[in-house]
């Protein structure tokens, strides 16, 4: 059974990692906490679900998995539109206004989702069912969960490589470390910020898309991932990519083992651990 | 009032302050001059408590404050103004000073009567503003003040805390040249009236000679020369290092 709990923990952690990574990239590069991040997750979920439902009988199996990317794409597009319209207006304002604007965006987007996709649940379990199960150390485990972990691993690797080795990535890191300095070096903060926001939003959308084969797309699906992502960010440290990973693993394991052992205690236990970490290290584990 | 003995501070391989000794008597106004990087600001930071020295002692009114926190030093009477002005942006000039007084008198717990009802404190704040020639600006917020006035207000707040030793870090930097003397006049007349010992970091020699009792010249972390303003002005070594004048 421990094998199952551990695998579940890794699965939770994977999805959470994608979401928190997105949040942290935006937070690190732009200094903005996007309260509507959960709505982008939801948009990813709905888009992917809708696409899968519509092509499930008509296209080859391979395309079912590719269509998960549609969630990433739409979330990225919405992120782009958000950044261009709202976030631009927020640069000169104080924190309160930034949070309020993204909060307004959250309310708006939740209803936009309702307008487009209505209030029903979208079941898109085909990608999950088709992969079947596999034997892991004597336990039967759905391959789809492993698939999600694999995709997350690829995404993490890509981001790590991107941030560390590519010119674009290094420029983004420069901005997050010292914005003024970066402007002085001639970096186009505007375009790079847009890019960071789109990237972050896309990651949230990807996470949402990956989750729909296991759970239906419903209104409000983005709320809990958002709260958990906040906890990951707080515990791992604002703007830290390493922190997002460690934080996600911490939350994932607490969740998985907590639910297994004593369901009621899971959330308070999480907060307790987060609280202890914060008392010892107020900026989070890897925070500045 | 203030005795500094063998004070040293290193940053890695670089010695910012090298075995410095100095003494400020009660009521004296001392200026420290020197090129950039001579160690002036580091010295003041150690006296006000923002940096801990590597060796040496700082005695204030015979108390050892070498390692005391800035908070304690303020309570003991070491006040400081900053190069980058630190004011309460959205409060009036009167409130900027008055809140400091409330804090000094331990009255900030009083939560029910309006601040204006505390007439003695309000009067004292008004008097301080008057001493600094800022009375007409008492209801303005820092946004509406000129650079020079903001500097004066900054010093007025340190003043309100009943500092016996004031550390002024470049009090006229950022102030328009024509206002520099006005600013210094206001500040120094208030200081003289109360007999507060003052340490000023300055670049402008005219200001220094006009207002100081003594001048200390620092170079590369050490004290190069010390004496009355006109003595220093004539000093050859000083002229060579500071002004590059030879002969």
């Amino acid at each position, binding site marked *: 059974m421990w094998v199952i709990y551990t695998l579940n923990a890794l699965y939770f952690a994977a999805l959470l990692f994608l979401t928190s990574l997105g949040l942290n990239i935006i937070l690190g590069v732009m200094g903005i906490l996007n309260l509507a991040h959960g709505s982008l997750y939801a948009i990813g979920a709905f888009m992917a679900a809708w696409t899968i439902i519509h092509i499930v009988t008509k296209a080859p199996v391979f395309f079912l998995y590719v269509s998960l990317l549609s969630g990433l794409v739409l979330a990225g597009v919405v992120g782009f539109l958000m950044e261009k319209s709202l976030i631009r207006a927020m640069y000169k304002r104080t924190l*309160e206004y930034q949070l309020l604007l993204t909060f307004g*965006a959250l309310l708006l987007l939740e209803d936009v989702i309702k307008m487009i996709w209505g209030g029903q649940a979208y079941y898109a379990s085909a990608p999950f069912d088709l992969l079947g199960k596999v034997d892991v150390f004597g336990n039967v485990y759905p391959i789809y969960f492993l698939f999600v972990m694999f995709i997350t691993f690829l995404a993490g690797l890509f981001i790590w490589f991107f941030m560390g080795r590519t010119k674009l990535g290094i420029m983004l890191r420069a901005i997050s470390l010292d914005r003024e300095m970066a402007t002085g070096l001639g970096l186009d903060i505007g375009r790079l910020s847009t890019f960071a926001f789109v990237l972050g939003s896309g990651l949230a959308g990807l996470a949402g898309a990956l989750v729909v084969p296991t759970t239906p797309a419903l209104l409000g699906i983005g709320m809990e991932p958002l709260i958990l992502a906040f906890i990951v960010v707080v515990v791992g440290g604002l703007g830290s990519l390493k922190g997002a990973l460690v934080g996600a693993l911490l939350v994932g394991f607490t969740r998985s083992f907590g639910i297994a052992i004593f369901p009621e205690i899971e959330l308070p236990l999480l907060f307790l651990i987060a609280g202890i970490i914060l008392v010892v290290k107020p900026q989070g584990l890897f925070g500045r | 009032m203030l005795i500094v003995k063998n004070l040293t501070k290193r940053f890695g391989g670089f010695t910012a302050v090298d075995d410095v000794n100095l003494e400020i008597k009660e009521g004296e106004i001392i200026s420290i001059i020197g090129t950039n990087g001579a160690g002036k600001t580091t010295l003041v930071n150690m006296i006000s408590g923002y940096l801990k020295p590597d060796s040496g002692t700082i005695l204030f009114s015979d108390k050892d404050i070498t390692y005391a926190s800035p*908070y304690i030093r303020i309570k003991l009477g070491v006040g400081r103004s900053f190069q980058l002005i630190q004011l309460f942006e959205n*409060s009036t000039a009167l*409130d900027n000073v008055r809140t400091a007084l*409330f804090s000094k008198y331990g009255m900030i717990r009083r939560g029910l009567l309006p601040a204006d009802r505390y007439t003695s404190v309000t009067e004292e704040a008004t008097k301080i503003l008057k001493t600094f020639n800022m009375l007409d600006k008492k209801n303005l917020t820092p946004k509406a003040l000129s650079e020079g006035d903001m500097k004066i207000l900054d010093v007025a707040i340190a003043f309100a805390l009943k500092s016996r030793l004031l550390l002024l870090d470049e009090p006229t930097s950022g102030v328009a040249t024509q206002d520099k003397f006005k600013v210094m006049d206001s500040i120094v007349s208030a200081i003289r009236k109360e007999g507060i010992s003052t340490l000023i970091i300055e670049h402008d020699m005219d200001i220094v000679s006009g207002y100081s009792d003594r001048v200390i010249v620092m170079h590369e972390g050490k004290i190069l020369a010390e004496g009355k303003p006109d003595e220093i002005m004539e000093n050859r070594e000083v002229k060579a290092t500071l002004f590059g004048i030879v002969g």
Partner: protein
Amino acid sequence: MIKNQRWIAYAVIFIILLFVPRLLSIHDLMLFEYGLTFAIVGLGFNLLLGYTGLLSFGHGAYFAVGAYTVGMIAKYLPGAYSLEILIPAALFFSLILSIIFGFLCVRHTKIFFSILTLSLSMLLFALLFKLYHLTGGSDGLRVPLPTLLGISFKGIRRPEFLSGTYYYFLLVLFAVSCVIMRGIVSSPFGKALQAIRDNEVRAELIGIRVRRYRLYAFIISGLFVGLGGALWSFVNGHVTADLSHWVFSGEIVYMTLLGGFGIFEGPIIGAILFTYLKLYAMGNTQYWMFVIGATLIVLVLLLPNGIAGAFASLGAKLMRKKSV
């Protein structure tokens, strides 16, 4: 002179408000009462936001505590179910929670602070939701009519109760809250909070223990919000866990911004306006969140000082024109 004018204006408004039950229909009166309870919430919240400079996205937690104190006493201690016990009890529990949460949160600032307050309120939400044996879970708890100083209201229905005795009870508490808060913000304590808001480094340097005073502000705001929550519960008749949800906390922030957090009366005006705005939106479209979200965005972009703030700037401009 201005000060006296202000108090005269307040007195006049208070007298007018005494007659409101005769002027409004019962339905509109209930709406107004919702507005009044939120006005108390807004006053408390703004002490923390406008005067101390801390943005909490989790004040719904204290609202919930106040409301649930009423609901729980109704369920488990019906013998103590009278206003003179309920209100102090609600204040007491709000005090406890704001001390605990406040202590954890004021060690941080800005974004961290906002996230922490948000997360803690969601912790309470989760507890209220999951412990359904105690709290009624998603169904929540009923809030029947209380007694007041021995007077029972059995036999009359809620609308009558609300348009009669309860209205005056609420109005008096609202007036008292305004007077107390007014006193707090103009006192030396209030000035110290504003100093912290304006420049925390300098505040520390003039001898103000910043963390401690932030905690005091947090606790006082929690008390006011808890009071609002308790008073609200009687108007609503029912309390649910989503009072502690962060979206509800966001609405509290919205109200304060709507009125303007730079002015004392701002949150009061914002609270009343928001109550009407929300109900209007909910009554006319199923996409009321879109309406609220869109208006919030427009508000932040166009009227950052809120409605009261916009009026105040307008007034100041007119005054300047007059003197010129």
